[in-house]
């Protein structure tokens, strides 16, 4: 699998989030929540690379989404939604870092301790959300997803890979696979359903009502 950079995506084609953004701009809060679910992990990884305190990552991500929500009426769609959200998150993280430097309590807590304090070292490095539990969970999920993708029929595998990894539109996939666009839509949906079935034991789907 490829690992694209965390930075803003290329805005060459229409923004995939345009329908949800439009609905959110019209006052549909559910549409904004759907965007949050889609991007929260990406945003947290980005912020985790900027701030040192793991406890701050989720708070800054929350603040970024709230700022984005408030600024949504001003979003003109000149860039992709994620590009815009990315900038908001970077600015929010920078402000949090700046504020932390001015806070004497935080400053005191971040001062180097003696060499005998073994617990202080990990807190000083950018976290990147790489706690041992997090690494294990992400490895398990990635392994399950890869196995599920491999188990798909070639048509479904190609369709979902072209969409999720290559980022192609349905039109482009239809052209590449020489299939009607409705078939592409159906294949991607079926692929997602099949992979989700394999992933179910790893995700906490018993608490469906929380979503």
């Amino acid at each position, binding site marked *: 699998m*490829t690992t*694209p950079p965390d930075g803003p995506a290329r805005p060459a084609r229409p*923004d995939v989030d345009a329908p949800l953004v439009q609905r959110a701009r019209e*006052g549909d809060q559910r549409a904004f929540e759907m965007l949050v679910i889609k991007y929260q992990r990406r945003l947290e990884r980005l912020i985790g690379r900027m701030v040192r305190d793991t406890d701050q990552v989720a708070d800054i991500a929350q603040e970024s989404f*709230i700022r984005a929500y408030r600024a949504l009426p001003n979003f003109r769609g000149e860039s992709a939604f994620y590009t815009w959200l990315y900038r908001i998150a970077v600015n929010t993280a920078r402000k949090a870092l700046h504020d932390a430097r001015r806070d004497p309590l935080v400053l005191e807590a971040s001062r180097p301790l003696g060499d005998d304090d073994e617990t202080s070292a990990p807190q000083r490095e950018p976290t990147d959300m790489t706690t041992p539990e997090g690494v294990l969970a992400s490895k398990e999920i*990635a392994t399950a997803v890869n196995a599920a993708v491999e188990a798909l029929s070639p048509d479904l595998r190609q369709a979902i890979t072209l969409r999720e990894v290559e980022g192609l*539109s349905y039109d482009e996939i239809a052209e590449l696979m020489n299939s009607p666009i409705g078939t592409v839509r159906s294949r991607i949906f079926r692929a997602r359903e099949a992979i989700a079935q394999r992933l179910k034991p790893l995700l906490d789907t018993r608490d*469906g009502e929380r979503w």
Partner: protein
Amino acid sequence: MPSSHPLPPENRSHSLLSALCDGETAADEARLACAHWQADAQARVDWHTWAVIGDAMRAESLCASVEHDADFVQRLRERLACEPIVLAPAPLAGGAAATRHINRWAGAGAVAAGLAVVAGAVVMLRTQPAGERTLMAASNPPVPTQPAASAAAPADPALAGYLFAHRQYAPTAMPGGVRPVALQPAQP
């Protein structure tokens, strides 16, 4: 698994949701998919699962915090509940031509309002004794906002409606303590 036969009806809403995930829905389909997402708990679970699948296919490290995703969204949902509903100003029906029309009116109105303020200040200063002029200049006389706004009010009802929508959205107080004037749409 056969991959191209038509979907059963019960799966169509779910299929729409999948297409919405990729930005491949028309406006009415997006509306249906959002309604389905709100009404069906399984749809909300699947939306999250599909997002995780996409992230896992692109980069393994994106799935490190999947366990707390639901709590994160729940917390954000509570905060959003305290936020006012955001509404972008509705576009004017006339499109680009109407926008040019607005720009022309807005530009003329701004110039007229500016001139009115400057002229008012000059007249007031000239009519005051010399000793009071310094005091007047330093104490920032109140800006005659109502006449200026009235002068800028367009006669076009569509334009007046558009500006009214903007004023509705504008904050109640502008920086520096100047309050925006509520402009009613012109009666036909």
